[in-house]
């Protein structure tokens, strides 16, 4: 049985595009490394100390997320991260996450009523590192008059993912033996997100990324057979 692209992927892409448009329309943004010469043609400029600086600061974050593009199961992730920002633009991060999985109704329906057992790739843990690049720094003025600063970052990284490829388990029947073996395989990921600065040390972070991991089954490789998980996470970061 072939599976069409889940609607959730289209919806997610649309939502992202809308968010980008809103940011462009309603905020004031500047390149992170903007300097005086960038605005040399303006008669009046604002020169002020940056509200939130990340350079040489440690970042601790805790996030909750979910895999958005799996048809037959829900994966809820808890991810903890530790990073260090070398500059306002670049940072290096390490992270580890654990996933809680349960079957979707579709899986139960197929298994119970039709005795169809789709092949499901589940991730249990992910860990690794990534580089973050922050090209954009901006602000919103809220209705109350308060100003909310944010930045926009991109990430790229990799590591390992403990995963399994299981057949069955939908509708209560047993998982086919041999397909429930957990293996740790390589993964890489790319993503984007924003940090909204709630104070001088804390930030609300959202992040969406595509994590590609090599399936646990024998003979498969990450390039040809890689499983793509689109993970959306929300969390809080604390900067020391």
């Amino acid at each position: 049985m072939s599976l069409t692209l889940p609607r959730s992927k289209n919806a997610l892409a649309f939502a992202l595009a809308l968010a980008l448009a809103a940011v462009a329309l309603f905020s004031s943004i500047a390149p992170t490394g903007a300097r005086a010469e960038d605005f040399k043609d303006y008669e009046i400029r604002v020169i002020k100390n940056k509200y939130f600086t990340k350079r040489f600061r440690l970042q601790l974050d805790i996030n909750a997320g979910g895999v958005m593009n799996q048809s037959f199961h829900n994966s809820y992730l808890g991810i903890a991260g530790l990073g260090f920002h070398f500059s306002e633009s670049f940072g290096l991060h390490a992270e580890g996450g654990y996933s809680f999985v349960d079957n979707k109704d579709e899986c139960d329906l197929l298994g119970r009523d039709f005795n169809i057992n789709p092949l499901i790739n589940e991730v249990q843990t992910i860990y690794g590192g990534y580089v973050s690049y922050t090209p954009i720094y901006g602000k919103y003025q809220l209705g109350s008059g308060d100003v909310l600063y944010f930045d926009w970052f991109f990430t790229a990284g990799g590591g390992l993912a403990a995963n399994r490829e299981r057949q069955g388990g939908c509708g209560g029947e047993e998982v086919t033996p041999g397909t429930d073996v957990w293996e740790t395989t390589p993964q890489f990921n790319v993503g984007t997100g924003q940090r909204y600065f709630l104070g001088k040390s804390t930030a609300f972070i959202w992040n969406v990324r595509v994590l590609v991991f090599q399936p646990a089954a024998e003979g498969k490789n990450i390039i040809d057979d890689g499983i793509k998980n689109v993970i959306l996470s929300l969390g809080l970061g604390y900067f020391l």
Partner: protein
Amino acid sequence: MRVKSDKSNGLSTGPIKSVLACVAAVVAWNVVASFVPTVSFLAPLVPVAYAQNAYAEAQRAFQARDYFNSARLFYSLSIASSGDTRAKAEFGLAESLKKAGFPYGGAYFYSRIVAQGTKNDFFRFGLDNLGDLNTRSPLGRAAIGGIFGTKIDPLQVPPGARGFYFFYKGLEAFDSGGAAAGLGGGASGMQSVARAKSEFERVPSGNPYYPRAQYYLGVIYAVMKDSDGALGAFSRVVRTSTSDSLRQLATMGLARVYYERKDYRRAFSYYSQIPRDSDLWLETLFEGAWAFFMIQKHNNSLGNNHTIHSPFFVNRFYPETYILNAITYLRLCRYQALRDQLRKFQERYKPTFADLNNLLKKYQGNPEAFYSVIARYRATGRLGENTAATEVIDAVSRSDAFKEAAAVVRGMEREAAQLRGQGARWEMSGLADVLRVSYENRRKATIRTAGEILFSQAVQQFRYLRDLSDQTRLINLEMLSGRTDQLRARFNPENQGSDGTSWGEGMKPLNVKSEIEYWPFEGEYWEDELGGYVYNIDSKCAVATSAKK
């Protein structure tokens, strides 16, 4: 005269009847005296025993913390007695009112004690308590002036009240000549200043009035051109005051002293300490703009004024910013921009001038009504008439004179309302009437005194505006007459070299090691950008000179 005697039982009943009649009269008199408040002129006839009993009863009520009852009892005793008893009763009454939550009521009776001078045994306690009350609920200049109208020997002032006494004596001397001396008021003004100085110096360290006294001393030293003395006094205020607003005023004082010394970097270091949410923040920007002008940092000077001209501060009165901008553009040989500033000044302040003139004519001689205009503006945020004068009314409403008067009036009205709610127990004795009258009289006196001060402040602003208008006309005339170079020379301070530092937000030097952000100004004012504007224009003088050639 023959007295018929009853000899029925062999005794003469005539003398017994006389004694009984006397006792009955005394008892009847005591009953009447305790209930009828208008018999105070007969006070000497109240028997001593009655007074002692009444005092003891009042004391018992006070010690049992039944202050409403003790106040009633003390009041009744005070009007029915004289001498020491009356003095004790009045003091007990004042204490009871204070404890019952009627500080202004208590202050009224303390004032009566103090007004009697040292012959009242409770003079020192009264003065002590007045000083203490004033730190928590301002009594107002009108009331305090009345208290110290009585001649008091300074040696009789108790230690606890020395701060209160000498501070207000200093203030009295300062008001009578201090301000005038600073503006060239002459020898008599300087004498008053010297007297004020000696009074303020007698306020002891550690006293609640000490920081305020030191602030005024700082101002006096500045007027006397003793900048070291001024710096010392203002620094002491910053160290010892627990009031944010007083510390900020002293910080401004330090900045201004350094400005006078032409040590502009130090001046900026103090101006930049005033937080954005302070009432003084705009003033620091304005004075900082002048300091930037003096060190030829024209872009920063124009940037500071740009914040003041933003829509966030549309009702704030800083007409001189246009003049400063105009002479800055003059220095940069940007004559069209100069003319624009003069035009903007006239457009903005010509209606203000006219409406302010109307207001002053209407309320001249009627300080109470003028006070009401200010109070209504403060309460509603709008001026009901002559609306173009809003900026000036706003400036006057931010003055200390209005704030103090408003606090006193609010206090009086709050106690009067409290009296209506809780004072029923005092109606019979007449205490409620006395308090009501005292609140009303004091409220009226406060409003009248404050109204006079506020009116004179408004008149000063009118004259200030007129002077600035004359300056704009002078600049225009000089330019039309082609005397631009002479005009430029007049506004170039002597020996003012340019400062090489780059200055950023908050009048602080830019630190290249810290992260700086730049935003373009495109006509939109963002609240977080206020105070951070810096112009990016250069001088056209070389071009203008070669064009002339």
